[in-house]
């Protein structure tokens, strides 16, 4: 089979861009964080355009290790959009706070490259390598502010727990390999479906070693998805890491977790769906319940958003737990809008923290008076996170709930709908500070231009996605091949 490298153009380009940014910083050390950030964003935008235009260039290459299909293409768009937005919003932050800006953007881009490779993996090992490249690049980023002890703590914690989760994942992979004798997705899928057919289409797990392997794999992925009970690293890391890094982490790392869950469980392990679907439903239940309740008493907005992210993982899992084309597509749609919404919310946090030095929710009092644009953006973004129509977050929740009920998961959807109301409580608490309370300090808050552009893109996206049809079609196309036998 000839090697068709043209299928890897976005990945190669992202890697090249990472090296170009590093080189530019070496050659012209006076460029500064702002210009490098804009360079990264422009480059990412160009790659995003290429990836979008080449979305129909599908195929398998590198001897089956790399699958460029619609699913990989969809996640490419998400990861590239995430790095584009985060590079933009970081520009002023990096200029002010970070001593070596080149490495910052390079690490971000390497992480993106890793996640893109992972989403397109055709084999458990490629998947693992991509995931590690994506995650390891994030460890130093989380600890990037060396003078801040909390940032260092975040980096260390993230690394230790990340390593543990990788080990768990790897052990699961080795068990799957041990039972079925292959790591290639296509072969795994075939042999499991054959085993299922041989016992009349029923439960298709031939032995308990495979079941154990699946359990470990789910645990490993759950760290990335930040699903309860594998969530405990998130609040501390989100809190301590530099805010733009948190923004990237909260979106890209989570999307990566869901990308691999879809790739592995809807792909090779689809025949065993009756077994893992209930586990995913259980994780979803626990995440919605725990995340939403613990978010209520938070006083720091980054921690609040961390717990809200745990809850969102619960909603996202409903779609996959349904194991239907609509369910999988709705999770993908959810991820896409979540990317814009969450990065937007963290952009507001970054801007406010830079201007006022405050990250506590009380620091947002009177935000709508100090900066009407920032206040309004925060209002829209939080309401979208809370699933208020007609914003994108509402459609996302609607789809996953509809898919859940369609699959008979009444109990899960009922909890989902009720916890959505709970979630609105803590989102409204922030809105109350921003809109109802008068500002203590009335000085206006300036928005740096790149961050303003990020906010504009994010809020425009959640408004445009009120017409969800085109993106939903794209998502449906992306998951269709999983359900074709």
């Amino acid at each position, binding site marked *: 089979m000839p090697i068709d490298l043209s299928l890897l153009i976005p990945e190669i380009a992202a890697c090249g861009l990472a090296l170009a940014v590093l080189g530019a910083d070496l050659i012209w050390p006076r460029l500064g964080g702002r210009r490098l950030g804009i360079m990264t964003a422009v480059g990412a935008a160009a790659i995003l355009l290429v990836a979008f235009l080449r979305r129909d260039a599908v195929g398998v290459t590198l001897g089956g290790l790399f699958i460029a299909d619609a699913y990989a293409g969809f996640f490419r768009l998400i990861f590239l959009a995430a790095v584009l937005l985060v590079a933009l919003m970081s520009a002023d932050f990096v200029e002010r706070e970070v001593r070596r800006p080149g490495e910052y953007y390079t690490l971000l881009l390497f992480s993106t490259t890793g996640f893109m490779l992972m989403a397109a993996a055709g084999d458990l090992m490629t998947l693992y390598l991509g995931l590690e490249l994506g995650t390891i690049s994030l460890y130093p980023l989380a600890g990037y502010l060396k003078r801040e002890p909390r940032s260092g703590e975040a980096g260390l914690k993230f690394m230790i727990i990340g390593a543990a989760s990788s080990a768990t994942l790897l052990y699961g992979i080795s068990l799957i390999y041990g039972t079925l004798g292959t790591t290639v997705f296509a072969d795994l899928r075939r042999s499991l479906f054959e085993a299922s057919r041989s016992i009349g289409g029923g439960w298709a797990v031939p032995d308990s070693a495979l079941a154990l392997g699946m359990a470990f794999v789910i645990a490993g992925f759950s760290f990335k998805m930040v699903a309860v009970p594998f969530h405990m690293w998130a609040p501390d890391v989100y809190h301590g890491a530099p805010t733009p890094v948190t923004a990237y982490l909260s979106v890209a790392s989570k999307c990566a977790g869901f990308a691999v869950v879809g790739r592995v469980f809807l792909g090779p392990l689809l025949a065993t769906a009756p077994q893992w679907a209930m586990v995913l439903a259980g994780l979803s239940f626990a995440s919605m319940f725990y995340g939403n309740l613990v978010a209520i008493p938070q006083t720091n907005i980054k921690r609040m958003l961390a717990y809200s992210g745990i809850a969102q993982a619960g909603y996202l899992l409903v779609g996959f737990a349904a194991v239907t084309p609509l369910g999988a597509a709705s999770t993908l749609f959810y991820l896409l809008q979540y990317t814009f919404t969450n990065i937007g919310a963290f952009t507001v946090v970054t801007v406010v923290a830079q201007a006022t030095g405050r990250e506590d929710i009380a620091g947002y009092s009177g935000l709508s008076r100090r900066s009407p644009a920032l206040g309004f953006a925060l209002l829209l973004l939080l309401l979208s996170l809370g699933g208020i129509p007609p914003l994108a977050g509402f459609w996302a929740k609607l789809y996953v709930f509809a898919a859940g009920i369609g699959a008979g998961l009444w109990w899960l959807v009922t909890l989902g709908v009720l916890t959505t109301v709970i979630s609105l409580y803590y989102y409204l608490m922030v809105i109350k500070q921003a809109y*109802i309370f008068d500002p203590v300090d009335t000085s206006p808050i300036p928005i740096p231009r790149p961050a303003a552009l990020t906010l504009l893109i994010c809020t425009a996206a959640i408004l445009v996605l009120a017409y969800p*049809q085109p993106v939903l079609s794209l998502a449906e196309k992306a998951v269709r091949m999983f359900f074709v036998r």
Partner: protein
Amino acid sequence: MDNAIHWIQAHVLTLLLASPAAASVIMMALPRAAKLAVRLTAAVASGATVLIAGYLFFAYDRGAGGIQFIEKVAWVPQLGLSYHLGVDGIGISLVVLTAFIISTGSFASWTVEHRTKEFYAALFALVTGVFGVFVAMDLFFFFLFYEIAVLPMYLLIGIWGTGPKEYAALKLTLYLLVGSAFVLVGLFGIYFYADTPRHTFDFIELSRSGGFNLGLQRIIFVLLYVGFGILAGIWPLHTWSPDGHASAPTAVSMLHAGVLMKLGAYGVLRIGVGLLPAGAQFWAPLVGGIAVVNILYGAMSAMGQTDLKYVIAYSSVSHMGVVMLGIATLNAVGLNGSVFQMFSHGIMTGLFFALVGLVYEKAHTRDMPSMGGFASRMPGIAAAFTIGGLASFGVPGTSGFVAELLVFLGAWRAGGIFTYLAIFAVFGIVVTATYVLRVLQRVFLGPFKEHYEGLPDARTTEWVALVVLAALLILLGVLPGPMISLIDTAVRSFVP
């Protein structure tokens, strides 16, 4: 030119939604200091909705009946979801009500000085949602507009309210969101289990379907009744409403008690009774029983209040009981009365809240024991309050009489337990008369309390709400025919 007129006629309901929505966006874009421009935008936009509502009222073909002015655009075809608008007689009467309340409410809030543009922008966003609910013919868009109508309330009460406004705003919002969670699950139930060729949210397709499993109808009706009922203020889930209404600024109280509570009743009627007739049949005695509790409990509570605004707020709880009792009768007379009561109570409570707002603004108190003799200084306000009060306990010649008469006749006709319910409900009217007359006596009659020296009557724009709404109450009482014949065309489709 002909093309333009034709286009407008074909999209009249979209225009109805677009005018407040556009107004809201324009207001947000206006500079902070341009308060007059904001107010004029509000006046123009609400005037436009009155014109459109008037057009609907007169252009609706009563002979043909049914759902008219239909617009339909596919939105998400995979899910059977479409942007589908249309109105029948019930929808039109409530659209007319909303248009009157928002236009008079805009004038009643003319004096809002604090963050004027945000106030009107949020108010008109809310109104867009209200109109949307009344004209949506797709369950999904119905829900979407329903949520849009609820959320701005949080800011409107939280920022511009009085008293324990943050508490009231949060309580109201969370109660209503819990309600919408119930509604959403119920709508999903209809979507997935209705006997249609393919899953659809389309109201007309669903109402043509063969109905579905009896047991499920009963379960789903309860979900919808509880969900919508929270907004309609059914006992014992009404406690958000007195707090919310009392804390809200004038125009918001008018809109909320006048129109938003009707969204709840409208939801029970349109979706609960319309799509789940067997479920409604099964639960009707309970719905009727709770309605009577509402009537009596609301009236008794109103009697015990000393805060003028709480009296009006509890009277809404009581009057919504009449609406729900009318729905529970499930016969043409009762349903006609119920919808007529929605309209009549909307106008009446709008008038009351406008008046309370004026009294508070001028006397700076809502504490009734400290007031007295205000009629000598503000005769216009006192006269309007008297008209509203008479309508409230259903004196012949006012709209309240027609509405309550129809509801009680309907209850009588329904027979069985409803006969007894009607008797209890009539007793509620006596209590209502007591508290209304007591308010009149304490606030407006008796000797004038001297420390309120210099109390002015209503001025310029403030007259608009008073005159328009009071005149409507009497007009509908004397000449209920056109309105009832309109409602009746729609009610016929609900009863076998």
